[in-house]
């Protein structure tokens, strides 16, 4: 399982590097402008984020002791997965369609907000779970 995940990560890294090299070449050859190359790269980054976050709720890990901890973990993974996937798609969409000045700032805000939601919910779940009575 770890080998498979590692293989996917390496394959994704190779694809990103290959696309970056291809875009650099196209830019040098004059077939693509600097703006176009930047947009394509950022769209790829956004889609990679969405693809990775898509599998986040599947990483359930070992079984927890209490049902409360199990449901909280499940909910946190679900919220994190959804927010990061949507953020990745929004990031890609912004870089594909919005003016550069807007995409530059808005894409960061979108991903930042998704991270805040993910970590905020996880921390809140952890706090609630710890304060819950044992066995609840």
């Amino acid at each position: 399982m770890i080998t498979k995940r590692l293989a996917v990560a390496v394959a994704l890294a190779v694809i990103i590097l290959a696309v970056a090299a291809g875009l650099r070449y196209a830019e040098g050859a004059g077939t693509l402008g600097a703006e176009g190359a930047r947009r394509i790269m950022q769209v790829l980054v956004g889609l990679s984020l969405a693809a990775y976050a898509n599998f986040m709720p599947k990483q359930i890990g070992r079984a927890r002791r209490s049902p409360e901890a199990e449901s909280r973990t499940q909910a946190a993974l679900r919220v994190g997965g959804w927010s990061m996937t949507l953020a990745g798609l929004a990031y890609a969409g912004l870089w594909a369609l919005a003016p550069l000045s807007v995409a530059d700032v808005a894409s960061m805000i979108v991903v930042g907000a998704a991270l805040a939601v993910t970590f905020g919910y996880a921390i809140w779940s952890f706090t609630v779970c710890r304060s819950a009575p044992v066995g609840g």
Partner: protein
Amino acid sequence: MNKVFKALADPTRRKVLQLLRRRPMTAGELSEHFAVSKPTMSAHFSVLREADLIDAGKRGTTITYRLKLSVLEDALLGFSQAFGIGVGNAGPTVDTAPEITKGRTS
């Protein structure tokens, strides 16, 4: 992906996934929500496990099922629920389960 579509096509299996959204449940707890036999429920669990939509953990003689949906699978579940795909098959009579139970149990 074919296995995922097959698993989500059945309303009973979708109900199982919805129940597991609330919290992990044992096979017995899940079966209580359906008026079908245990082997039939077992077959449904098998289909869901093969599609990697649920995880089964055994503690003693109890099997506890946990939800294992990716965001895309979660969205597909929502869509099939919203559009009522296979709703006519809901209830105690499950069309595919008897065929499945012939070959395996879990």
